[in-house]
């Protein structure tokens, strides 16, 4: 069996305690493989990666017992607030995630398997490490190829002459939260900051999540949605369960009569970060969504998606699915 390496587990009861321990160990949640301390909520990403020796923290700070990270609340003034420690299963089943928020429940529901959704959390999903089929392998497997750019080598096995690490952002909830213009609250010992979810990610497969190693992601706030907002998340994968997205498409749009007042389309699993598509958004805004318009929008998404050969499915398949799923996601909003 692949066993976990030895590490010290500290179960935090408060964010403050977790921050203190992080500070002591000077590690963090940005999945720096050399980190001496790492945060763990459900452990569904951290532990398999530790078994593969992708992370070998000396200290794991457990967040499961932190009450203040729990809870889902919604009100018309502040919008929807979801604690980072809310499980994906709870999120998927929440009656508060209706109407414009529906895509968030769909995305949570589409993650992995029921067992893992009960363990995995929203915060954990947002901090999911990027994935690549040269990276998510055992230590001996990676060693046989002399490792890869993301860990252990200065050569990317996907694109040896490329511009960096192409590991794929694979969390299902992030594109939805970006489409819904959500923010995250991040705590550190020197204070809090609130940033858009979109600012949590950047084009760096090695360090995909822009959190400092002494910070804790506390909760997510989705702004209140005016009447007429709708959202959807479609995920293409090989099997009906288990699998990470081959392509994910999040769409959110507000309709004013039969015209679209505002739209946001975000692709997932085609790059190191969720890919917002402002040109597509612009095509859709102010328009009646005719079949021709949706086709054109889907073509534009296809044009902008440049996946590599590093997950399930070929490049051609993934691009074709970008087109099909973008159009279907948009159509699903029309269908109500």
């Amino acid at each position, binding site marked *: *069996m*692949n066993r976990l390496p030895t590490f010290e587990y500290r179960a935090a009861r408060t964010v403050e305690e977790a921050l203190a321990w992080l500070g002591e160990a000077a590690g963090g949640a940005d999945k720096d493989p050399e980190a001496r301390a790492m945060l763990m909520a459900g452990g569904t990403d951290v532990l398999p990666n530790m078994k593969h020796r992708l992370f070998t923290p000396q200290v794991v700070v457990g967040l499961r017992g932190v009450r203040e990270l729990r809870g889902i609340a919604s009100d018309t003034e502040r919008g929807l607030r979801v604690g980072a420690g809310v499980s994906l299963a709870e999120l998927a089943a929440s009656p508060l995630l209706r109407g414009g928020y529906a895509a968030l429940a769909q995305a949570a529901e589409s993650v992995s398997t029921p067992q893992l959704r009960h363990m995995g959390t929203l915060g954990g999903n947002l901090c999911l490490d990027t994935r690549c089929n040269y990276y998510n392998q055992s230590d*001996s497997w990676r060693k046989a*190829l002399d490792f890869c750019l993301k860990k252990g080598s200065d050569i990317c096995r996907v694109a040896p002459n490329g511009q960096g690490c192409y590991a794929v952002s694979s969390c299902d909830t992030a594109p939805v939260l970006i489409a819904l213009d959500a923010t995250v609250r991040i705590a550190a010992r020197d204070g809090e900051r609130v940033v858009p979810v979109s600012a949590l990610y950047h084009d760096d497969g090695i360090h995909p999540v822009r959190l400092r190693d002494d910070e804790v992601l506390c909760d997510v706030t989705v702004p209140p949605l005016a009447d007429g907002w709708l959202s959807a998340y479609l995920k293409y994968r090989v*099997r009906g*369960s288990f699998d990470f997205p081959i392509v994910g498409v999040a769409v959110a749009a507000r309709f004013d009569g039969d015209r679209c007042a505002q739209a946001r389309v975000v692709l997932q699993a085609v790059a190191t970060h969720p890919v917002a598509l402002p040109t597509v958004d612009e095509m859709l805004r102010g328009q009646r969504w005719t079949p021709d318009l949706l086709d054109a929008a889907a073509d534009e998404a296809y044009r902008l998606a440049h996946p590599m050969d590093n997950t*399930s499915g070929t490049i051609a398949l993934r691009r*074709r699915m970008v087109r099909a799923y973008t159009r279907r996601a948009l159509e699903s909003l029309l269908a109500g």
Partner: protein
Amino acid sequence: MLIGKSLPKIDSYAKVTGAARYADDIKLPRMAFGRILRSPHPHARIIRIDTSRARAYPGVLDVITGADLPVKYGIMPTTQDEYPFAVDRVRYVGDPVAAVCAVDEETAEAALELIDVEYERLPALLSIEESLAHEDIKIHDETRRGNVMKEVHLSFGDMEEGFDEADLVREDTYFFEGTTHAAMEQHACVADSGADGKITLWTSTQTPHYIHREVAKVLRMPQSHLRVIVPAVGGGFGGKCEPFAYDFAACLFARRHGRPIKFTLSREEAFLCHRGRHPVKIILKTGVKQDGTITAVHLQTFLDGGAYASYGLATVYYTGALLTVTYKIPRYKFDGMRLYSNKPACGPKRGHGSTQPRYAFECQLDRIAEQLGLDPAAYRKQLAIDPDTTTVNGLRVTSCGLVECVDRVVDSSGWQQRRHHLPVGRGMGMAISSYVTGAGKAIYWNDMPHSGVIVKVDRGGGVAVLCGSSDIGQGSDTMLATVVAEELGVDLLDIRVHAGDTDLTPVDLGSYSSRVTFMAGNAAREAARKLRAWLLEAAGELLDAAPDQLEASARRISVRDAPEHFVSFAEAAQKAEATHGTLSAVGSYTPPKLGGQFKGAGVGISPAYSYTACVAEVEVDPETYDIKVEKLWVAHDCGRALNPTLVAGQIEGSAYMGFGEAIFEEQVFRKGLHKAPSLLEYKLPTIYDTPDIIAMHVETMDREGPYGAKEAGEGPLNPIIPAIANAVYDAIGARVESTPITPDKIARALKEQQRRLAAPGAPKPQPDPARAANRVSQEAPTL
């Protein structure tokens, strides 16, 4: 009567409560743990192995390398090309190089890093084409020509005449991708040594007898000093039919150190052990008359065998042997070739060697039926062989329910009514197949029985059944208990089955080639019938009745016409023991002498053949080409269903496995490494993906099978894959001639088809007239 009833398996409670003990559950005092160092290179010479740093690591007890066990072994006696640990050369990524034995698993794992191996990399061959092209790069020095492990050429009848007679000759090329077993339980073993120096090996295996022979040979010890016990096994599917490095290492460690040791492989290592389905390139040429009658078939197969022989000698023969047992084929030629490559060795997987050519044949027949304007189902019935025939390659077929199987799936699926009225994107396809009920020859040829059973009855009415078989989840223990309980008239709960223990149980060759129900079942029945005769005689004396007036049931022996006159089973047993001494009896089964006189006639022979037909219904998304298999109707001629629930379970399991191979699974490599050695990335279907499976029995009452039974464990897999392929064609009009059938391949096939049709002078497509008339839209799917 217990035969024919759907009784729960006798081990079901142990399995569902977690009480069943698998190899990895075994814990013994002072037990050490082993881990295996494996080659990181697909092909390399070992210049030097230095284990000194690992040996010096605290907690390490021993390090075993190729030098410790320099004896070649191999499951087939004539193709022994493997060492437990590499000697001089490694031939695939994952080839065992050394084993560390330590006080715990973490220590063993850590010490693997301290073994210094210097390799000289050699060029690696990773496909059939590469192995054929590079005769200068030899993976095994012993091969006569290039990397050809085995070549087979068989011809039956005048082929030239056959193709001359034909009105239509089709030659098509297919490729069947390799797949692995993915049994739920990873390989594991525990070995221990007694104070007398004798070794006991508990190992997760389908073939304890063969393990016994090979391990004793490699360890240069008498077989009498080795005992192999099969604990509960979590599935095999062909992947646990031979010894592995850990078996040898564990026994050597136990012998050297006098203490027990356990090896449990990781899931990744299970993928590397493999011995799974061979990738096979198939070139198939078939000649038919205008009415569809087959005049000649020429099959060529090229098997990508991986780094070692494994069962490959049998596999290459099997790719040719069983094509003949379904249809009337007057002339047949078979050319097979198995090649070495630098990948994990392939071997037997459910349907062993017959799955790949059956896929090709059934797809090609679908094309032929279409060209001749024949209904694929009616056409198959027209071609079907009759019961009690001998095939052109000398295989004796007795019972054959093929036509009934076709009728069952046609009727239940609504084939006639629905097939031409499905919307675009939906399709139905059909295929049939046959499989052996036990190989007619053992791995090592001999005249001894293939299965032996001892039944003993104790004074309290308990019955013990001893058999060398290995219950890998298929229910062979339940089958043995059912047969004996049936004959002796006791309850299943009165029977204790002791299986798979080479000290205590008579030899059964193992759970492979779908042989156990037929062979061990016959042996058990023979043993039980001997005891039954004594028991009836004893009861007759007590009841003052002739034995032939008595019957045994419900733990009683009673007078048939006056059931109030009875003695208990235990009373009869005591009386019989007083008369005959200790009550035990043996039974054994040896297959009849079968087959032709040519070299290779030993593969494909079987005392009986099962038959299966399948109709698949699929939906293909016309935009994404995503394939959804909606439903599978599978009718299987298992002779007689001794336990209908278990037969249905085997049909469903086979259908599931075939479905996975048809559209998802592939054991593929990149840069010499397994691309997806995990259950996350190797795409076994989940319950969400799996279609409805309608499992049906066709009972033919085979005259040599126990109570008429034949096999059910493997045969139902074979027609699933071509049925799905044919249904995909029916749905979207593209023939994908390789597995797995993926959206990408459909896209390419449609593009290729459009290119062909657009070419100047291309023949106009001739759509199925019935379909053209009935379908709403006949537009070509857009790309």
